[in-house]
């Protein structure tokens, strides 16, 4: 009963202050929403990777493969079986289905280890029978079945819930036909490895243990860590709102709390009821937050899925399917956030003295103490950032560096602003100007949290904006270098490729036909591609080299050396002149690193070798793709002739500008998510500023009333109020510019290098800065508008309340 009475008294505050209640709920909701949204995106993608990794129990079974990504000979498979190895063959490959691809996995169900039997191939004799018949049966997920409905050339389809999207399991015989790969085995799976490989096979085959996390998960980790970092940043900025709203409610309810304590409510009961009230609000806001987060994730998922597919080849479905644990985690974050933001107020309620102190507005001393503490913490964090930069390595250290830099700068902000305002006050002449500067200094304590949030949001915007635009500019230049040829051509199969070559050789307008052939291997434990190139000025004149030995190109063309991509060089710590061991089907090939080139956006490492060296060591390499040099004005007619002659599909022959557009589109979609989160963070910072100004505006009437009484018109006071807020926002925005550049440097020189393996040059974009400063001022103007209108419209009665209780 007592609890309900206390709760009723506390809740009555919100009835009288509905705007504050909405602000608190909105703050918690947006913080939870942005965090949950990002987590939903990550969870969806990771579920897809886990499905992909667990196809045929890849996370529990060992594999036997040929080195350098070569195919396994049927004779070797037979030899292994004879030696008592209980291996089962798998054939994998991709086929084109309409606008998308389909991963075909051929299995032999009768020899497949029981662990891999997770798709109910043998669920009933009829299904197994259908699977083994010549017409066959394709197992796909429900979404894939819907996509493939009516497609020609496929077997009848049945669904299996655990399969990843765009993947079909068929009998290996059917897979051979679908993939046009007779008598080919990609790998062998085995439940129990009986021992070392038999003599004679050890050189040609190798055993790989179960892969708990696939290459995909490893490659995309940094992408998801980036998303998580931005989600967390938005969460923290959202908590600034909650902190301000709870702090305001506490200040306003202080007399009520004192009264409750005075009439016998214990500090323990009072704090417990306040805690329960906070938890209830957090759950309400959390529910709304996870719902909004779901909507945000659903709207961003197509872009994320497209980025993951474009960058990593990862297949992530375009619709969300979230586990109940995600909803629970969202509510949990809302509770944790509310407690983190409201903890200080709860502590103050617990320690609240029963009698009000005689001088509640000892602002100057309190501000000096706070500034000293914040300054000391800022210096400590700056030192921590320095330590993370000097001693740390890896992506986590990169984010620790960025977090430390941002928080150190945010903590230093009030001190810097106080110094600027004190300087302004000293230099000011008119009494109202002096007052405006001095008053700004006094308001700083109340506004500093919101200004910190604004500083963080703006500097991250500047940093990310600089990185994205630097990337865009670099990437466009890089594409021009990498895609120097006018036309790119792919044959459907070896026969068509040979026919294309013969046709092209008879065309005098084709000045060069450059093969683009590559083999898959692993370098330094990571997936890597080895490209063969034909020695031609197209490469020597255009290739985006970062470093090259003087005779590097000649040595590569002679088959003695290789060029490596920047990310491979960083991962394997390679420099020009170093030796590199490349696993090939013909054994390990040791080459000299002749140079390093930039290869933006490619998660896998890459090495370039002479075309003859490639075909010598990978005799089975696919020889389907070519780059063609011709007069640019002739490109379209050449494409037209090729299509007419060979009935080529649209994506088999493509001109330079189309492929550049495609590449640019992938990267724009990649950054869509980042830019959206950035904009949301700035919006959240705007709400934080609005909340703080609203908080202050309640106390402002008492501070401004004496000036009004002395003859300063309300309109002028409102003008000064607005000017002061804009001035603080402008100073914050100006300070955010150098900080943003520092963030851009950390992103490009530390985090990008750690995450993706390549480093970008930084370009500055002053127009972008001007827009952001303008945006900050607009945010501040919008946030200050309502409190200023309230002041402008305050009735004399409201203002007169400051002068006494009597009429």
């Amino acid at each position: 009963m007592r609890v309900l009475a206390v709760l009723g008294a506390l809740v009555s505050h919100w009835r009288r202050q509905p705007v504050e209640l909405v602000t608190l709920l909105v703050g918690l909701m947006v913080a939870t929403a942005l965090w949950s949204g990002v987590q939903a995106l990550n969870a969806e993608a990771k579920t897809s990777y886990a499905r992909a990794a667990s196809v045929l129990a890849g996370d529990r079974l060992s594999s036997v493969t040929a080195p350098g990504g070569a195919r396994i000979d049927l004779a070797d498979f037979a030899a292994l079986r004879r030696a008592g190895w209980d291996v089962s063959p798998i054939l994998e490959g991709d086929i084109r289905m309409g606008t998308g691809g389909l991963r075909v996995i051929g299995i032999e169900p009768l020899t497949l280890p029981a662990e891999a039997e997770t798709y109910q191939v043998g669920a009933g004799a009829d299904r197994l029978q259908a699977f083994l018949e010549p017409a066959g049966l394709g197992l796909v997920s429900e979404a894939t079945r819907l996509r493939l409905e009516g497609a020609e050339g496929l077997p009848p389809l049945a669904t299996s819930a655990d399969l990843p999207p765009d993947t079909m399991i068929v009998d290996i015989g059917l897979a051979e036909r679908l993939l046009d790969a007779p008598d080919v085995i990609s790998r062998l799976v085995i439940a129990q490895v009986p021992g070392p490989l038999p003599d004679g096979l050890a050189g040609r085959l190798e055993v790989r243990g179960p892969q708990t996390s696939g290459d995909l998960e490893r490659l995309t980790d940094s992408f998801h860590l980036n998303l998580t970092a931005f989600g967390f940043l938005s969460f923290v900025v959202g908590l600034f709102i909650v902190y301000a709203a709870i702090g305001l409610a506490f200040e306003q309810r202080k007399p009520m709390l004192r009264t409750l304590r005075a009439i016998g409510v214990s500090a323990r009961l009072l704090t417990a009821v306040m805690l329960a009230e906070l938890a209830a609000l957090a759950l309400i806001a959390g529910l709304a937050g996870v719902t909004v987060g779901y909507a945000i994730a659903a709207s961003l998922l197509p872009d994320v899925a497209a980025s993951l597919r474009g960058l990593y080849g990862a297949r992530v479905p375009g619709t969300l399917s979230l586990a109940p644990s995600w909803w629970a985690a969202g509510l949990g974050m809302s509770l944790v956030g509310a407690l983190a933001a409201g903890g200080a107020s709860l502590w103050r309620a617990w320690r609240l003295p029963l009698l009000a102190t005689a001088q509640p507005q000892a602002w100057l001393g309190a501000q000096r103490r706070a500034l000293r503490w914040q300054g000391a913490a800022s210096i400590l964090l700056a030192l921590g950032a320095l330590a993370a930069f000097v001693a740390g390595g890896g992506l986590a250290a990169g984010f620790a560096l960025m977090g430390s830099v941002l928080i150190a700068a945010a903590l230093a902000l009030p001190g810097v602003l106080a110094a600027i305002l004190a300087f302004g006050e000293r230099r000011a002449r008119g009494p109202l100007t002096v007052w405006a500067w001095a008053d700004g200094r006094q308001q700083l304590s109340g506004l500093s949290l919101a200004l910190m949030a604004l500083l963080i949001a703006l500097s991250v915007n500047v940093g990310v904006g600089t990185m994205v635009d630097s990337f865009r500019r670099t990437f466009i230049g890089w594409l021009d270098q990498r895609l120097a040829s006018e036309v790119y051509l792919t044959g459907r199969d070896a026969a068509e490729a040979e026919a294309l070559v013969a046709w092209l050789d008879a065309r005098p307008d084709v000045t060069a036909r450059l093969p683009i052939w590559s083999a898959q291997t692993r370098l330094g434990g990571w997936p890597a591609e080895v490209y063969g190139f034909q020695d031609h000025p197209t490469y020597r004149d255009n290739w985006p080299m970062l470093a090259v030995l003087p005779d590097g190109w000649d040595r590569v063309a002679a088959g003695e050396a290789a060029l490596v991509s920047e990310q491979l060089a960083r991962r394997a710590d390679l420099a020009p002149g170093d030796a590199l061991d490349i696993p090939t089907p013909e054994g390990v090939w040791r080459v000299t690193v002749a140079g390093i080139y930039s290869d933006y956006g490619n998660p896998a490492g890459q090495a370039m070798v002479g075309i003859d060296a490639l075909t010598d060591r990978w005799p089975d390499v696919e020889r389907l793709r070519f780059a063609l040099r011709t007069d640019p004005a002739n490109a379209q007619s050449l494409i037209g002739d090729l299509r007419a002659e060979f009935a080529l599909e649209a994506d088999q022959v493509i001109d330079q500008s189309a492929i550049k557009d495609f590449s640019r589109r992938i990267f724009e979609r990649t950054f869509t998510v980042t830019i959206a989160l950035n904009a949301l963070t700035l919006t959240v910072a705007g709400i934080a500023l609005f909340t703080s100004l609203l908080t202050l505006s309640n106390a402002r009437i008492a501070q401004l009333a004496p000036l009004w009484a002395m003859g300063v018109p309300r309109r002028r006071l409102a003008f000064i109020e607005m000017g002061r807020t804009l001035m603080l926002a402008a100073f914050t925005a100006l300070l955010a510019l150098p900080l943003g550049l520092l963030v851009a440097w950390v992103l490009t020189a530390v985090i990008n290098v750690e995450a993706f393996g390549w480093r970008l040059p930084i370009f500055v974009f002053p127009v972008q800065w001007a827009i952001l400063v303008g945006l900050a001022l607009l945010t501040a103007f919008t946030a200050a508008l309502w409190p200023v209108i309230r002041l402008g419209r305050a009735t004399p009665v409201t203002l007169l309340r400051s002068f006494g209780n009597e009429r």
Partner: protein
Amino acid sequence: MLRVNCVSKSYPAAERPVLSQASLSLDAGRTLALTGESGSGKSTLLHLIAGLDAVDAGEISVGNVRVDRLDDAGRAQLRRETIGLVFQQFNLISSLDVRANLAFQARIAGRFDAAWQAELAERLGLEELLGRYPEALSGGQQQRVAIGRALAVRPALLLADEPTGNLDEASGDAVLTLMLALVRDSGSALLMVTHSERLAGLLDARAHLRGGTLA
């Protein structure tokens, strides 16, 4: 100097008018105590005279200016240049130090006189406190700053609303004595709202409000 003629004022939430046909006058250089029970309308009348609020009916003149006919800007100008206000709550500007607080109204009125400010600071015993902020002052010291601020503009009319209401008797007497001496020397007229018969007796005349009407 001050003429109040048949002034009435009501507030929407109040059951009856706060002021009803109230009239009084005060000549230049004279002092008048306005007394009455709590809720009798003393502060309301003072606020109407200062142009802090608008009358429902009646006339108020300060010098040759009809306050009841002024718009918001005109009333602000009147307060800036002609009227000094001293409140029970002191109402100092907490972000400014004592020196800036003392000079504030005189400066915004364009009437700052350094010699007069120095004299006020000396006579009010504030010389040692000029660099301090209001939060570091006692109640008596804060009220002396408020009086100094109001007089620094050399107002024709000083309005004081329970200026010693927040002070103990000794401090209150000291502050009031100082204020009266300064008012007389500056030639201002003083209208002071007070509950205290004793303090009212120190002024030249008194008017008593009962139920919104001057007796």
